[in-house]
């Protein structure tokens, strides 16, 4: 121990000869006259003045590391919960396909057969739009990245477009986030409902009833749907679509897109699959129409709308969950990085403190 102390004292005197006191900014060194202080490298951002303050700094950092660790656990858990729910949401989407497929087929067949006739079907007739309803689908909760914000932004843009064309706009809101945002704004809200994590046929029915009755009564001339569709793990796109009236030729027979959860390189990821629209059912020449074609269509279209609405709700919920997964993944990664940085800082501070104590001991021994 004496030898060690002696060695250090030798180093001290050597350093004093070098006289690089000016390079070292620590007040610690100033009182030690000329120690170059290369051992206490650290970062200039650690201006520890005395042992007491140094300890407090370390304690602070330790607390911060603890809280970041907790945050990381929470965001990681949220991500896993969202992942489990996405699977369920997907399955619900798949279960509701047969209903829509069947109706698309029949509708396609009917429209093919009746395209030449002059039919009185309000749901197929486009009329001059004086009042447009916007059905906006958002989520109930946050922490899902840009999912809600994107839909709301798109809605605001569409409202602006329509009002600049002199068209009145009313909102039908699904999801608390959209509801609370537009509640305190100028555009009148016709109806606001919750979205929920598992959309049911009853929910879709309720919304469809409201839309249909307003449309038939002439209170709305057109209804557009704004929802966020999922593209990939890092991007989702809000889109606008007219759902009422249904255009006779393109009766939303676009192919369906479903997304599947898979693993890639050991990490959860999501793939999109496109599915072709179902072909219209071939109607035989001797097909019996039990009722008038227009009556059939008038009865069929609301059913079809119901099915479409349910599917859109389910897709939106699945998109929200996928966005949340993605957002929580980023949050977890950031927390991990931050934790690493803080721990490094804490270690450096700890080492600085130890070195300082050593130097005090040495100096004290030196003074004797």
């Amino acid at each position, binding site marked *: 121990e004496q030898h060690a102390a002696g060695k250090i004292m030798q180093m001290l005197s050597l350093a004093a000869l070098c006289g690089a006191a000016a390079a070292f900014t620590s007040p610690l060194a100033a009182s030690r006259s000329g120690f170059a202080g290369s051992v206490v490298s650290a970062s200039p951002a650690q201006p520890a003045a005395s042992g007491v303050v140094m300890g407090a700094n370390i304690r602070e950092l330790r607390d911060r590391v603890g809280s970041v660790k907790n945050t990381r656990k929470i965001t990681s858990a949220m991500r896993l919960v969202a992942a489990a729910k996405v699977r369920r949401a997907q399955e619900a989407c798949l279960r509701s396909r047969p209903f829509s497929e069947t109706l698309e087929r029949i509708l396609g067949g009917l429209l093919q057969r009746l395209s030449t006739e002059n039919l009185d079907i309000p749901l197929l007739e486009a009329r001059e739009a004086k009042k447009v309803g916007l059905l906006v689908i958002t989520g109930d909760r946050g922490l899902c990245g840009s999912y809600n914000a994107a839909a709301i932004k798109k809605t605001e843009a569409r409202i602006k477009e329509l009002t600049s064309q002199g068209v009145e706009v009313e909102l039908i809101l699904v999801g608390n986030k959209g509801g609370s945002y537009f509640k305190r704004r100028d555009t009148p809200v016709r109806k606001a409902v919750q979205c929920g994590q598992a959309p049911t046929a009853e929910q879709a029915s*309720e919304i469809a*009833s409201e839309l249909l009755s307003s449309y*038939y009564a002439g209170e709305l001339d057109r209804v557009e749907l704004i929802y966020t569709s999922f593209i990939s793990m890092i991007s989702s796109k809000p889109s606008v679509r007219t759902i009422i009236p249904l255009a006779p030729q393109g009766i939303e027979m676009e192919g369906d897109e479903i997304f599947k959860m898979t693993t890639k390189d050991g990490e959860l990821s999501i793939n999109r699959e496109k599915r072709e629209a179902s072909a219209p059912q071939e*109607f*035989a020449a001797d097909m019996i129409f039990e009722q008038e074609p227009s*009556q059939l269509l008038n009865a069929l279209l609301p*059913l079809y709308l119901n099915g479409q609405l349910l599917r859109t709700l389910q897709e939106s919920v699945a998109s929200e969950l996928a966005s949340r997964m993605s957002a929580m993944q980023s949050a977890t990664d950031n927390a991990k990085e931050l934790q690493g940085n803080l721990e490094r800082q804490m270690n450096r501070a700890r080492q600085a403190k130890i070195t300082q104590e050593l130097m005090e001991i040495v100096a004290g021994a030196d003074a004797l």
Partner: protein
Amino acid sequence: VPCCAMLSAAARTPQLRRAATTALSRSSTRVLRTSAAPRADDQASSTGMKLTFTVPAVAIYQDLPVEMVILPGIDGFFGAMPSHVPTISELKPGVVSIQETAGGPLTKYFVPGGFASIGTDSKLRVSALEAATIDELDVDAVKTGLAQYQAAYASATDDKAKAEAEIGVEVYQAMSYAISEG
């Protein structure tokens, strides 16, 4: 026994102003029957009829060979059997009875309205907004509902209220008939 109160949401006539709402969820689970289930009479199904019975949330029957289905068409009940002439019909509130094997028991579902189409390929497609087995219909709720809508019909002042009450009466009457039929 969960009770089920349903009103048809289809606007059958242009005068109808407001589509009635459906209410209540049921706690029983749907059994998805597909033709993947092994059946003894599969050989006979080459000329047989395949049933696809769907509601928005789920497909109750998906391409299952059945012997006969009785459907509540608007203009009257009709039975669909293999090689039925292609038909398309709207359904009124009533019971869809499905007989899977010849001479076998009937499985009954109450629907508040819907659509049925039989194609040239002998495929029967039935679509409805909701479907409930008869056990799921609560007798008391149906009685109360029927009385309520009958009273509303009697006291209705304008066309719209009358039309709504009429739908209610029709659906509840069909439900109580379905329960009494068993």
